């Protein structure tokens, strides 16, 4: 868990590492964890990766947006190529559970509600 932060803050020294330790002490209630729960297979996620949005969630680990570690020599631009790093590169995306599902978006009317 601390791995990405360590990478993220490495250039900035001990004070930042202390901030990581601090983060371990905050209280996160269940209601907030529910708000941040990943999409379950039946959830109406509009961000579900896969064919037509029907694949199960790509809950393969975590990512962090990098800070001052961009590769300026990259062809497409430093931030573009180097800004996202997964800390679980060996994790696999589960196969689609239902590739025959409808291709309509999970939600499109702005009013909410499961399809």
């Amino acid at each position: 868990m601390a791995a990405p932060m360590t990478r993220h803050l490495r250039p900035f020294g001990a004070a930042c590492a202390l901030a990581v330790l601090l983060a371990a002490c905050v209280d996160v209630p269940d209601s907030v964890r529910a708000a941040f729960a990943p999409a379950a297979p039946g959830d109406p996620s509009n961000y579900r990766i896969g064919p037509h949005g029907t694949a199960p969630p790509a809950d393969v680990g975590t990512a962090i947006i990098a800070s001052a570690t961009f590769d300026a020599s990259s062809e497409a631009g430093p931030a573009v190529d180097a800004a996202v790093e997964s800390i679980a590169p060996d994790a696999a995306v589960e196969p689609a559970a239902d590739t025959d599902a409808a291709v309509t978006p999970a939600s499109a009317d702005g009013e909410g509600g499961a399809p």
Partner: protein
Amino acid sequence: MRASSWGLCATLFVASLAPSVVGCGSHSLPPMNVVGVDKSKASSKTINYLGGVPLRSGQLLVTESPDSTSFVFVFIPEKFYPFTHVAVISIEDGEPWVYDVTGEVKTFPLKKRLMDNVKGKMYRRRFYEYVAPNLHAEVYEPPEGADGEKLAAFVRQKYAEGVEFDSYFDPNDHSKLFCSELVSLAIAHAGGKPPGLDPSNPNPSVVEGMRWLGVPPGIALPAGKFIDEKRFVGAFGQFRTRTQAWAYFEAKRELFRRFTRDQRLGYMLILQSSGQVEVRPEIGDFVFGAARLFKGEEGLPPPGDPRIEAEVRKLADKMFGPFPASAGPSSPAQSTAAAPAQSATP
């Protein structure tokens, strides 16, 4: 319910970067590209910075944080706005300085509530030192009617007074300030009309998150409210072109558009047991993949060009499934509020 406001300052969580730059001693700053300039803004009051960007006192500097916090802030207001932080430029002895107010995580004593561990103050930093750690930054002239010298004098005065950061974002109590509150007050002091407050996002997961932080859902004052393409001066950052930067913003706007009332933050973000928020891999892939759609430096569509929106939506449909063009959490007029005018070129 107490009215409160999110200033969307980019440094609230432990992943904050800018205060760390100040506080942590030796480090090397990343290279910073100049990716846009409007030299017509040059005058007898401006200095030529980095080969021709006309900077002067009172200009506003908006920045986009490179870390995951920027993906939290974008969902706080009811409408989409780019950028996560706003500050003011002051030219002193021919050098550009940046004044802002921002929070950082305290050391001890440790508090259970996240925001109780955040405190901050006003900072004065050299322009390059301030801008370089960010993903993208843009400079804008102060709003019409605001005197730049008075605007800069106001923030210098607040810096001298040692104003503290308001970690609970109360826009009605000016004894402590958050970033956009400071800039709003400075604009008003200088004779201009600051932007008004926005409603915060009624999405239930956003409301729950704000409640957890101790900031009652209510109103927001996003940094992006201070931009206007007609007042654009210059752009800096990690992208190769301003078009790439605005393709990145367009991707975040697409994420916002898809964030209908039944969606929750967890579909895009991961909340670690530590309280740290991270971006799901596919979301990061999407936003930076969007920037990657526009390579090269010639013939690129300028910010606000509908081709950027079209290409980014095409990518989103490919990655996440189709989503109707007319759908979204806000009306079409609202959803385009933050897009710059098409007359501008990067």
